[in-house]
């Protein structure tokens, strides 16, 4: 009786709440937003079609607009000391490798080379001389420089309040003071500095420090092209918040991002880096490190810069005197269905059973599970001229997938941005052929075939699967699957420089072919015990504790040297103690904030090995070239 009454009352409450909520829901808006305080935009910003004529941010910054001042700031910056302040335990050779000269790491395939860029080695005297030339002189007895009008050379420096940045920013402030430049530091909350409508997004700084994440493909178009300068007039679209517009650099960064020939890309990136270091819209400082630690008796473990997933060679790992290797994870994977869960730890665990089809060692690409990466140079990809008529799905000049119609801007076959006015237009269309290596099998012995790739495409492109983005599916005109691979045809206009990378994931059609897409995220065969075609198979996942793997006897590659592998879930607080105590063998960069004194001491005693690599993330100081 009581239970019935309770449910009745609950039911009433829910119905009442629904009525209340219905009353409170804003009415649908057809044309304009209701009158609120200064509405600016009603939609997520998208790149504009027509060039923007700026009416704001047109006045060069009174101090930083002068190239001599920017050069002086560069000469006065002692990058080695900045690195030492945040990575004091790292050896000098590694510290030197962290220094950035341009926006591309020195070990990257797209780096222009020291001889092709302007390098600003630390030289305070040269910096001081340049400031003198720029009219900023140091009066006798004064600490900071002034100009003829008596204005002090003071610059506002904005960055986050992270301890890491506070540390090197304090050193940089002192370095600038040595040159007579007063730096006024503002350590703002990250939520403001990186906010959608504040900080960098609104160009609200003079000198601003933050980090970019470098990748095997350097990108850069949204950072350095002239039409990517965020302005009130274009809805603040673009990431070139410095306001740097160098026509030669702008043209070449676009070329580098859109041409498909690697040599052409390298040449274009070289020009951009030359101009970048000449104009100095930003002072590149240093790569952040990625630190790994491993038991001294573990062999084969070798993280490589540019290769995000350090387990690329897991089959070669071996621990002396033990049949089990234990990796410590301070974060448990949420799911091994990486289409919906893309966390780093999930990918590491997933790639133990299903290795990637290519690796990015030293920022370069190498095929692993496909016979070759199909480039235009090796004939694996053709870039054909095709006649495209109205209504055809194409990629427009801004990278959006649209149906071709009058008024749409596209890149024609000659690489020119043109407006489609009707009839037909000749565009480029890429076709690539991907072939799996021979002998690839699932752990149950079933061969991996084109059907598995076809399932990969089907699930990746089904919104019911829970996948987040479908841009790859939208860009695909057709895919023809064969026994051992597929031919991928992109829609006209797709000219992605990474066209040669495998497109579709491999899923076991013989096991999951009948599983509805909506059930994939929740099915344990997908999320918890994916069938392996890699060096190890997943035996057991004890939630909150460990994932247990065993060598996969059906792996086509070199057999795993260690018969067993375990991912042990640990906590950040316990990580070092467990490594030193021998409970785990490997700690990766997600578990280690850096090289600690404890680890350095243990390495000196020969108990462990540490690996400090230049990570992809790099610190820099952006310079605001214009004022509002």
């Amino acid at each position: 009786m009581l239970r019935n009454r309770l449910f009745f009352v609950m039911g009433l409450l829910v119905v009442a709440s629904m009525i209340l909520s219905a009353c409170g829901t804003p009415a649908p808006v057809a044309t304009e937003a209701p009158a609120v305080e200064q509405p600016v935009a009603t939609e997520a910003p998208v790149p504009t079609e027509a060039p923007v004529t700026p009416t704001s941010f047109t006045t060069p910054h009174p101090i930083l607009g002068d190239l001599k001042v920017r050069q002086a700031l560069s000469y006065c910056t002692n990058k080695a000391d900045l690195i030492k302040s945040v990575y004091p335990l790292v050896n000098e050779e590694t510290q030197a490798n962290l220094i950035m000269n341009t926006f591309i790491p020195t070990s990257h395939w797209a780096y222009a080379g020291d001889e092709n860029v302007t390098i600003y080695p630390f030289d305070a005297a040269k910096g001081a001389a340049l400031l003198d030339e720029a009219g900023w002189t140091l009066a006798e007895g004064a600490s900071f420089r002034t100009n003829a009008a008596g204005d002090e050379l003071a610059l506002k420096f904005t960055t986050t309040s992270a301890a890491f940045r506070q540390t090197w920013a304090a050193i940089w402030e002192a370095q600038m003071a040595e040159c007579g430049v007063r730096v006024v530091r503002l350590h703002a909350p990250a939520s403001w500095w990186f906010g959608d409508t504040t900080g960098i997004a609104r160009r609200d700084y003079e000198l601003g420090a933050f980090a970019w994440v470098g990748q095997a493909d350097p990108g850069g178009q949204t950072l350095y092209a002239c039409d990517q300068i965020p302005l009130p007039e274009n809805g603040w679209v673009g990431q070139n918040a410095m306001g740097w517009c160098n026509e030669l650099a702008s043209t070449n960064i676009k070329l580098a991002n859109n041409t498909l020939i690697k040599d052409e890309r390298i040449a274009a990136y070289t020009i951009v880096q030359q101009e970048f270091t000449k104009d100095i819209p930003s002072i590149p400082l240093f790569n952040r490190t990625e630190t790994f630690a491993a038991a001294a008796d573990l062999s084969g473990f070798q993280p490589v810069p540019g290769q995000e997933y350090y387990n690329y060679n897991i089959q070669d790992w071996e621990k002396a005197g033990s049949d089990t290797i234990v990796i410590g994870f301070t974060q448990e994977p949420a799911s091994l269905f990486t289409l919906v869960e893309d966390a780093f730890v999930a990918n590491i665990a997933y790639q133990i059973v299903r290795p990637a089809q290519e690796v990015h060692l030293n920022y370069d690409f190498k095929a692993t599970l496909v016979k070759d990466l199909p480039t235009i140079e090796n004939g694996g990809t053709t870039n054909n001229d095709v006649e495209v008529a109205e209504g055809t799905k194409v990629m427009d000049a801004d990278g959006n997938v649209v149906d071709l119609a009058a008024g749409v801007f596209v890149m024609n076959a000659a690489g020119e941005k043109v407006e489609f006015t009707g009839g037909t237009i000749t565009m480029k269309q890429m076709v690539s052929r991907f072939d799996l290596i021979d002998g690839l099998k699932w752990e149950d012995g079933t061969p991996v075939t084109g059907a598995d790739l076809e399932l990969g495409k089907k699930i990746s492109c089904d919104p019911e699967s829970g996948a987040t983005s479908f841009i790859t599916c939208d860009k695909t005109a057709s895919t023809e699957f064969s026994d051992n691979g597929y031919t991928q045809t992109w829609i006209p206009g797709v000219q992605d420089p990474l066209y040669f990378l495998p497109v579709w994931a491999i899923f076991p059609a013989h096991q999951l072919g009948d599983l509805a897409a909506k059930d994939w995220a929740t099915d344990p065969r997908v999320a918890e015990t994916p069938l392996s075609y890699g060096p190890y198979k997943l035996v057991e996942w004890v939630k909150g504790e460990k994932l247990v793997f065993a060598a996969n006897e059906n792996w086509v590659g070199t057999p795993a040297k260690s018969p067993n592998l375990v991912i042990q879930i640990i906590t950040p607080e316990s990580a070092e103690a467990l490594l030193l105590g021998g409970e785990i063998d490997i700690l990766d960069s997600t578990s280690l904030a850096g090289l600690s004194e404890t680890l350095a001491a243990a390495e000196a005693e020969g108990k462990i090995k540490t690996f400090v690599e230049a990570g992809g993330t790099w610190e820099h100081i952006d310079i605001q070239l214009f004022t509002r």
Partner: protein
Amino acid sequence: MTAYLIRRVLQSILVVFISAVASYVLLSFAPGGPLSGLRQIQQSGRFRITEEDIARIRASFELDLNLPVRFGRWLIGVPRGPLVIGGKEYFAEMVVGCRRPVEAEVTNSRGVVEIVTVGCKEDVLLKDLVGRRTSRGVLLGDFGLSWRLLRDRPVSDLIESRIPKTLQLIGLETLLSLIIGIPLGIYSAVRQYSRFDYIFTTLAFMGSAMPSFFFGLLFILLFSILPKNAGLAYIPAGLSESVRNYTIPLIGEVIAGSFKDRALHMILPVAVLTILNVAGWSRYIRASMLDVLRQDYVRTARAKGLGQKMVILKHALRNALIPFITIVVFTIPGLFSGAIITESIFAWPGMGRLYILALGDYDYPVAMALFFILSVLTVIATLLRDVLYTIADPRIRLH
């Protein structure tokens, strides 16, 4: 008594309901969540997310539904669609949410530009809920699916995976604390100002003052790392069991996953928690006993010639325990919630750590489940405390 219990149970249900509403609303307004970061991704070239993608993601997390509707579905699994009576649908067109909100940048009174929802381009109607996945409601024990920690799989799986370890840890620690703490407190009170009392009071004070992470790290250093480096017998530094077999001097080979292995791994975290609890509880018992021992009826009992043991255990302790009951019963929710810091230090896979992860990763279904279960256990503990009062002190009557 029966009427009292019924009344209290009903009150407790109301309290649980109110706390569920409060915590659900608070979490709903907390910053972060599964949609944070999508705006940045939306502008990125290679991984572009469309407005439709965002609408779909909002729907999969039910963020497109109005708060009361979401709460109803979370609590009792309704509404799941229009009300159907006699084959006829009612309220099918009722608006229950917004699939595509209209957002605008506005400058608020502080001059800060922020993005706010100013309207709705596409409503969610009650009939749209038909076929959407939903839980049966927490009242029926279905806590829904995890957003982050165990993505798209049942929250109950997560909780079930952690509960046994937490019960082992906290249960043993509580038991040991009671067995050690109560006699220590009594003895110290009875021997007030003795050498033992001074030493005990000093140690208990230190134990209460020291944070658990300090004890944890100290113990790892003293009983694990240093003796192991010196080739002496040691205790494993963390985890609930080992992955590999190992050998400890004096103890010999320990098989990974064996009872011996698990027992060894429990020593340090249990020791830390027990020391902290013993320090606090024994001081409490001591103070309470000292109060009671000064009472007239104790003096009378002694004057009547009763033995010290009888006076202490029968007359004094029973009354001294009344305030202590309050502390002890509230270990019941503690059995469930675990020990956040100690679990972190020793990498113990328990509930305390789950709490932190759920809040840190914006896994609100998990956090809500934990809040809800804790509020239920707290209410039960309160009720139990009142009942235990009547047992400890017959003068107390519940009406």
